[in-house]
């Protein structure tokens, strides 16, 4: 072994170039899948390659993806939030209440985002202050948040949102480019930069890989987690604004079951459900894959549930196939 009097040996920065890494990554595999689906879709249905249709198809994933970006960070940090869809219900209900009291669009937006933040803070406090496992906490708050929405609304509905409010879910920025798609694209860039290029992102990875180690290294782990729960709440609030605006009404059952689709999107995007690894480009591609599969099969009038079989198979398959391949190669070689 070594003693310090020996001259230091040279250790290179990297063994492979970052480009090489990217080529063999999950993201490129997923991208290939996305392209394949795109090609199959355009062959299978004459209606697929149409700007307006493709634009409509983006609504299948834009709201989910907004939440998925924040959820990706949360899952990378080793936590999860299953209450996101319930937060949408509660935020939408809060907006409805504000609307009944005569609030205009800016106030509605503020109410939606604030409700999301508060819900996130509640989850975050239970997880970081009481040290409860987030999967269990958010199974509870999932019923609680939506339950409050039911208490407020009962069998009623809020409708009659101001017409300017419909811009978020129904407006277009440029030709076929919808407002929601622009929000999605902006968020993709922002989250990508935050996760991959900032100190905060690095702390998220460190926390997810080894929370104790990160704490000992001076990362304020609880603050990081709290911030991520707040962020997930905020994004759910934003999704609530878009969805409410798109539907033009609020009922307590809004967005039911969406949490699992969001988690599916994140996992499909290559984020390790156990925390510690994953990327935003992966989630972006996964959003497109899910959107393309749903839309493509929808065009062939394949029922939604059959479509969910595809998503289920994709979810398991994309992880299983490389492993099977590796096992097979090991046996053969």
């Amino acid at each position: 072994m070594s003693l310090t009097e020996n001259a230091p040996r040279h250790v290179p920065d990297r063994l492979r170039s970052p480009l090489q890494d990217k080529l063999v990554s999950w993201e490129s595999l997923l991208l290939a899948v996305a392209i394949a689906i795109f090609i199959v879709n355009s062959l299978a249905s004459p209606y697929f390659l149409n700007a307006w249709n493709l634009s409509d198809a983006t609504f299948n994933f834009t709201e989910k993806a907004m939440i998925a970006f924040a959820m990706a960070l949360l899952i990378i940090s080793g936590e999860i939030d299953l209450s996101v869809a319930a937060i949408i219900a509660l935020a939408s209900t809060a907006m409805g209440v504000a609307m009944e009291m005569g609030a205009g669009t800016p106030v509605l937006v503020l109410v939606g985002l604030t409700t999301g933040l508060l819900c996130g803070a509640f989850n975050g406090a239970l997880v970081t202050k009481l040290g409860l496992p987030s999967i269990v906490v958010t199974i509870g708050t999932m019923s609680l948040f939506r339950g409050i929405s039911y208490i407020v609304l009962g069998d009623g509905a809020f409708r009659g949102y101001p017409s300017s409010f419909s811009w978020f879910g129904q407006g277009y920025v440029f030709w076929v480019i919808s407002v929601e798609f622009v929000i999605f694209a902006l968020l993709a860039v922002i989250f990508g930069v935050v996760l991959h290029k900032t100190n905060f992102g690095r702390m998220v990875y460190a926390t997810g890989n080894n929370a104790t180690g990160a704490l000992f290294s001076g990362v304020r782990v609880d603050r990081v987690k709290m911030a991520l729960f707040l962020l997930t709440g905020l994004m759910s609030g934003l999704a609530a604004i878009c969805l409410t605006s798109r539907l033009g009404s609020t009922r307590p059952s809004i967005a039911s079951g969406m949490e699992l689709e969001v988690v599916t999107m994140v996992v499909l995007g290559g984020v390790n459900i156990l925390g510690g690894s994953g990327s935003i480009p992966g989630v972006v591609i996964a959003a497109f894959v899910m959107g393309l599969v749903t839309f493509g099969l929808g065009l062939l009038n394949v029922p939604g549930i059959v479509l969910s079989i595809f998503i289920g198979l994709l979810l398991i398959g994309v992880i299983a196939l490389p492993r099977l391949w590796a096992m097979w190669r090991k046996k053969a070689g």
Partner: protein
Amino acid sequence: MSHLKSREAILFGAILCLLFVVAARFPAFVAPGNLVAVFTDTSPLMILAMGQMAVILTRCIDLSVAANLALTGMVCAMINVAAPDLPVVVILAVSLALGAMLGAINGILVWKLSIPPIVVTLGTMTIFRGIIFLLTDGKWINAHEMSPHFTGFPRSDIFGVPVLGWIAVLVSVVMLVLMARTTLGRSIYAVGGNPHAAIYTGIDVGKTQFAAFVISGMLAGLTGYLWVARYSVAYVDIAGGFELDVVAACVIGGVSIAGGAGTVVGTLLGALFLGVVKNALPVVDISPFWQLAISGAAIIIAVAFNAQSGRSKGRVILKSAEHAQ
């Protein structure tokens, strides 16, 4: 060792309190006949929760139980439609076998391919439901299409308790013995408690997890038949979202989501607690719109409470502090 036991005692106390409060507003709720009805109504949840407990103990989670239930239930119903005279024993055997097989699919993926259980079962959950749709084209099978002995079995009465309730009792006893007195049961605790150490003691972690998934699947399959027979209807969406109730029952019962800790009795009490809440709310005339929020709050409180009482007190180095405690 005392606080674990006392945690179950406290949960039991909470259930009694709940019954007391309900009885104050509505005495008939605690009439023996009604208590039996509540127990019977909670039986499916109890059976599923025991399977889920085994899975959670090994550090996994099974989100596909409700979908497994629906698929197995549908297959049982279809068999009944095709062969109305087939005895119930055969149907029971089919439900156990098919459920176990579906559980084995989860187990294999977790064991051989090391895919995280939550991902596997999230996937199979949608796949199983999708398969029901493919099998039936989405059509329902209704009461009038099922034969009387098929739907009658879970509700036939033995000593004043329906068979469904007795099955829950039987499954509980089997699980008690399995978890406490068999190598597999102890391995399940060991694998969840310390997977690394389990390898060193010659326990195959993956295989044990596989076994837990098979148990969970088998019980889900059994519940599938019972469910379909009890409500006399089978369709794609039966027991939709029920997997979360099952997980909640385990968690309320003190099963640690991190694996290795939790008991059969606790799980049963957790399921009963939820069952009593569910059955009591409509009775005491609380607006149906409050039910969801109340059960959510109950889960959060139970979990916070469990965590508080289960928190290890830490070791004490100072002699003076030791005496003060």
